[in-house]
């Protein structure tokens, strides 16, 4: 037993020694990126690839390899190939479903680094990172609540996991801040990439009377539905997700959320290169400029909807009567200063069964947010079990 501890200590010292001295300033670092979808998906994998390209431009010593459309069932093989054949020093696995395989790879290759996106398991050489958009969903919710005519708002959602529940709830809290009368309906499509299902779900929500739609799915399908209805004279407000999708719905997209992974990738790769890497969870929000507001690269809010939002007045406790446009901007500024200044999940927050979940004046902690599994009180229905 003792022998093993000593041996472990020696080997970990050895390991630390290697990782600090391993990459001299001029030494190349090779990074492999495993994507779950095609890089042309216009959503999740596309955004990661943009981040990778940004890091490549910024870091002259960086060499990269990407593998796209890797199913979870095949991820272990791809990681093996990147490490064994391509001699990658670090592998980024960018889908939740890769978690177990990333942890196993960490054990198998103690001299390599692994970064898993969106998971919660870490080990000596496996770190986690995530950029979360819930604050932007809150801002989108304010706009949806201010613009809706029917007081019925919809959300097309991928899978019932905490990340999605957090986004739905943040969107609902934004709606509530602007319009306490409005309710939110959710349709689950059980796919990250499923334009056909997303279209069906969007049509179903519109048929139920919803006139503002947000979504989590990797294509502009929901926006295309909104655009079609808007062109025919029935205004449907949509919120772009993840990439700049406004061009797909110039008459429908109000705003949206954009993710910039570039900063995270530069930070992680630099820390590995100069030997300061730790496996601390990286969780970046508006403050770190990972989460950005907007449905296009140029405007935060579609110019077409700026006027209506300036005319929509909202009663708030903090600022009195204020235009929705101004409220969005002020909240965004506060978010950029940090969650200490403004946190959408500030009590009192009740779930839609009437239970008090966050007490008055209290803020949800990061771990509360990461494990959230209840709907707030203006969301209709139940989370699928």
């Amino acid at each position, binding site marked *: 037993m003792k022998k093993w501890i000593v041996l472990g200590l020696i080997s970990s010292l050895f390991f630390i020694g290697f990782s600090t001295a391993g990459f001299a300033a001029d030494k190349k670092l090779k990074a492999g990126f495993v994507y779950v979808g095609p890089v042309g998906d216009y959503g999740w994998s596309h955004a990661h690839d943009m981040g990778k390209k940004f890091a490549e431009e910024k870091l002259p010593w960086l060499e990269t*390899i*990407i593998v796209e*459309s890797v*199913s*979870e*069932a095949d991820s272990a*093989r791809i990681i093996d190939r990147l490490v064994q*054949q391509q001699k990658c020093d670090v592998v980024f696995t960018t889908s939740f479903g890769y978690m177990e395989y990333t942890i196993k790879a960490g054990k198998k290759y103690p001299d390599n680094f692994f970064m898993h996106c969106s998971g*919660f398991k870490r080990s000596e050489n496996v770190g986690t990172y995530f950029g979360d958009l819930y604050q932007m969903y809150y801002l989108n919710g304010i706009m949806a609540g201010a613009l809706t005519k029917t007081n019925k708002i919809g959300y097309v959602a991928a899978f019932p996991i*905490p990340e999605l529940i957090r986004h739905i709830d943040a969107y609902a809290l934004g709606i509530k801040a602007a319009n306490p009368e409005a309710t939110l309906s959710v349709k689950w499509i059980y796919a990250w990439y499923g334009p056909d299902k997303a279209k069906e779900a969007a049509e179903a929500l519109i048929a139920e009377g919803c006139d503002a739609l947000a979504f989590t799915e990797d294509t502009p399908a929901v926006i295309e539905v909104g655009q079609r209805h808007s062109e025919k004279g029935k205004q449907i407000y949509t919120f772009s997700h993840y990439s700049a999708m406004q061009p797909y719905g110039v008459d429908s997209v109000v705003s949206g959320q954009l993710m910039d992974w570039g900063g995270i990738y530069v930070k992680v790769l630099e820390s590995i290169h100069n030997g300061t890497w730790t496996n601390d969870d990286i969780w970046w929000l508006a403050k770190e400029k990972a989460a950005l507001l907007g449905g296009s690269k140029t405007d935060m809010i579609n110019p077409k909807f700026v006027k209506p939002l300036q005319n929509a007045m909202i009663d708030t406790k903090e600022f009195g009567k204020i235009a929705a446009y101004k409220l969005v901007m002020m909240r965004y500024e506060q978010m950029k200063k940090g969650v200490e200044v403004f946190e959408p999940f500030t009590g009192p927050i009740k779930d839609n069964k009437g239970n008090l979940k966050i007490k008055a004046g209290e803020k949800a902690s990061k771990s509360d947010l990461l494990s959230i599994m209840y709907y707030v009180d203006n969301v209709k229905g139940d989370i699928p079990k």
Partner: protein
Amino acid sequence: MIKIKTTDRYNITPLRSFMTNILSLAAALVVISILFLISGVNPIFAISEIFSGSFGSFYGIKETLTKAIPLILIGAGLTLAFRAKFWNIGAEGQLLMGAIFATWTGLNFGESLPPYIIVPLIFLAGFTGGAFWGIIPAILKIKFSINEVISTLMLNYICAEILTMLIVGPWKGKERFGFPGTNNLPDSAILGIIPGSRIHYATLILSILCAIVLCVVVYKTRFGYETRVVGENPHAGKYAGINFLKTSIIIMAVSGGFAGLAGVGEIAGIHHYLGYPASVSSGYGFTAIIVAWLAKLNPLYAVISGIFFAGILVGGDAIQISLGLPAATVQIVNGTLLIFLIMGDYFLKNKIRFEMQ
């Protein structure tokens, strides 16, 4: 005018069959080379990368074998069903049902039983699950004349939904912290691997044994003869007193059961827990249809075609990783290879003459 005339070819020798495959492969490689040239990649370099990525390196061989295990099992089982002209498109669902049964058995009895009892038990459970899911369309077909292509295909989706329901609902494990998926199987239920690889050897040996046994059954027993009669001449079968219901049920129990065994291998050998359908199987049930076809419906050849096809899939990685081409290229290359191999079959079975008129 030129007229094309086809006549059946009767003298198909093994050599001719082999040469046809080689020529088809060569023709496919020529077309693929053109595709690579268009993409600006040296085709000789690209093709050598693909083959060294699948068969030409230690890394490639062990990954190819890992991927071949489910393909051999399912492919061998499908040859039996296809011989009887029972078009089982439902192996994916049968695999998943096998995985469901095996996971239940492993999670509930794995803690208290030693490996030499629990491992055979989960294989038995997986076989039962797959067989159960395979028998349903057999009964539907014989009793109610419901087309098995439709019923087996649709049962895939039903099984995937049942699996999803289980892992987001009652079977969701504490180890997954609110995310869908069961807990990991206990260590005793996890299959050993060849060190340094991901080959779960128990399933590999089982898959080859299954193929051999099935080959003997098909060519040397009365039951094997019956399956061929059922497929090729159902009327004669009726006069000969073959019980269609019984024969079909046995055929689909074996075909589905083999797929179920493949599901056990994936769960207990690779993933160690039950997750979303797409993370349990990357479409093995569908890929194996082609494996069975390439094997000319001979269970033993399914071993070779299973390994060959696994090689194509694994070698495809190289297209992305070494050559930096998009993932869709892999599918184009694989699709081209298959089309040519299947076309070759046509020229093997038919004589083609051009006649001037």
